[in-house]
């Protein structure tokens, strides 16, 4: 079965790009519009990978990652976050919260697919 991916972003355009890119690469993509929505969908669903923005209203990405890891659901599910610049401090905090890796914006289709493949272990 195709891998299930959840993309969490408050920006509709980024969600759409992610969805188009990953659907073309053969993945099933579900969208969530902010951290809270992402948390609920991730808990209810059965995803192989979660891609999330960090800066979002209602619940930011860091809080979502932390809540997900602490809830005990989605243990071992890779979580990739989107970050604008290569911000070392943010990376450290996101990883401490339980994130697996990151992708730097702006990204192109190729780099997104490459990271997704890397993290899913093909």
């Amino acid at each position, binding site marked *: 079965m195709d891998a299930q991916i959840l993309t969490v972003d*408050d*920006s*509709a*355009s*980024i969600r*759409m*790009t992610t969805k*188009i890119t990953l659907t073309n690469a053969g993945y099933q993509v579900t969208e969530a519009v902010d951290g809270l929505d992402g948390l609920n969908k991730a808990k209810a669903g059965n995803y192989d990978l979660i891609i999330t923005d960090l*800066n*979002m*209203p209602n619940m930011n990405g860091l809080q979502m990652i932390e809540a997900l*890891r602490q809830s005990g659901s989605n*243990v*071992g*599910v*890779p*979580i990739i976050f*989107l970050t*604008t*610049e*290569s911000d*070392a*401090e943010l990376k*450290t*905090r996101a*990883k401490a919260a*339980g*994130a*697996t*890796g*990151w992708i*730097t*914006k*702006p*990204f192109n289709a190729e780099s997104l697919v490459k990271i997704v493949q*890397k*993290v*899913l*272990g*093909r």
Partner: protein
Amino acid sequence: MMNDPIQVFRTEASELFEQIESGLLDLLHDLSDRDQIDAVFRGLHTLKGSGAMFGFEGLASFTHHCETAFDQVRKGEVPATEALVSAILNAQDHMKALIESPGPHHDAQSERLLLTLNAALGGSSSASADGQIAIEGKAPSTKTGSTTWRLKIRLPKNAMANGTNPLGLLNELRGVGECEITADRTSFPDFLNLSPLDLHLAWDVTLTTERSRSEIEDVFMFVIDDMQLEIQELPMRSVPAGAVGDGSAPRPPQSVETVAAGKLTDTKSGSKAGDNVKVPAERLDELMDRVGELVIAQSRLSQLAASIGNGQLRDVSEDVDRLSGELRDTMMVLRMVPVGSLFSRFRRLVHDLSRETGKTIELQTDGESTEVDKTVIERLADPLVHLVRNAIDHGLEGPEERLRNGKSSTGIVSLSATQAGGEVVISIKDDGRGINRERVRAKGEAAGLVQPGAVMSDQELLQLIFKPGFSTAEKITNLSGRGVGMDVVRRTIDELRGTIDIRSEFGVGSEVNLRIPLTLAIIDGLLVRVGDSRYVIPLSAVEECLELSLEEDIRSRGRSFISLRDSLVPFLRLRDLFATGTEPELHQKCVIVSTGNERVGLVVDQIIGDHQTVIKSMSKLHSTADMFSGATILGDGGVALIMDVNQLVLRGQSKEALMRAAV
């Protein structure tokens, strides 16, 4: 629904503009409205990120400066002013134009608006003229024939729970070149302690590839900061296959590094791999245990030799004594690693903290070659991180405040290590504002850690910052100020049988000294008798031994102080403390022990002599007996408890405080 992401972006951008605008207008009414500051920042941030995604580079780089400005406001580095808010309101129209008709013809206008923004920030903005967003680039790899690398890979324990797939990484390595992978199961726990979510395996990999070191490191890009990764280039001659047994790939060289965590070993081409032998740490521990048993057996032998009085036997015994002492010392050296490996981690931390706090910081290190037991090094890492963070967050002032106080704008944090006898002293020093004792006291009272008005020594007062639940930071920052951390420092140092001492001068700086025994397994002790039982006092803490005559004891009763070269030293009658129920000896002895700057006398019945002690830790059931740090087996098979000098000194000091209060 539109299917063109660029069209979706334009719609989204106009919503973002509304969000930013209404936020800015609300801010004009109330400049301190945090929710609006956050909303505006978020809006600008998304606009920049999405703009860059869809090719609006002009918009992205221009918005970047506005975002940076608001980030400074958000972090409280610059105040939100009317001028700043207006500057961004004006800039908004320009952003809209940048989306409508992207192109270089806007550059002049961009520059003009950024100048206004800069002026509104007080001219200190970091908005640079180039306006480019850095995009991570990879250094071109240099391809030079194929090289054989030896990798030691240990991922963080929680890697799998956090989504990293170790198998995927190993498969990726196989894609980089020809691999021989061996699992290292030495840290695999027994079945009862096995948690399926934790990662207990490590790997040794021999990899032959044309790719560069950085390309190998790229495989671990997401975990490289948290893991232990050693990449060593193997000498060329080992590349040809078939050297050993089954080996179609070269065997790892027989090598040893006493591996310090997180260390990246670069083997110099000159060093010969064959000079080293690799030994798992576990086997060293086993050997240590054996040496410990030998030391115990030896002390039985010398007691026996002394009681029999046979000269030849005594000669042999003395020889064996010397040899076992040397064996012990050699054993210790095997387990030693230089502290430099620990210090080197702090460069990155200080760099990050410097960026985060906006303070200019210089890290100085000294005594990197000082060697400490490897277990001690591993356990010291966390406390040191806390102390360095604390020094930077609470100790160092911002550049302006420093200049105002006549200091250079760069704050200095120094880490140093020196060996002093059987101890290593690690000192963390800053030239910041120092500890405000009144505030510490007030906080301590507020947190219920001190009785209001209680008499305390300066050291006791300063030590308050290591109590659980104590925190002087009025506002919680990312770094410190949550009141957790410093008490963890205290606990870890206690567990290492070390001591902490703080010096601080208000306005000049602070210094925290950690004194840690070089090794955890064996100590030299002073064997004493109290009542019918024997006890060991760590020799490194003993300053001197005095005789306490019965008359003197009686004279000082109720006060428990002896006068030692013009200073009063409190003493504890161990016979009373341990409730032995025996009568005091005619000539009691008083052993003066110290923890560096505090002294206390321990009254014992008899001093038996010095004794090499192999420490056996106490069971959980006895963990509340805080006056003792462990136990040891004596030459005659009896058991002696090892005194925890820190705890005893604390008891003595509280006595002193009581007395001061009474005077």
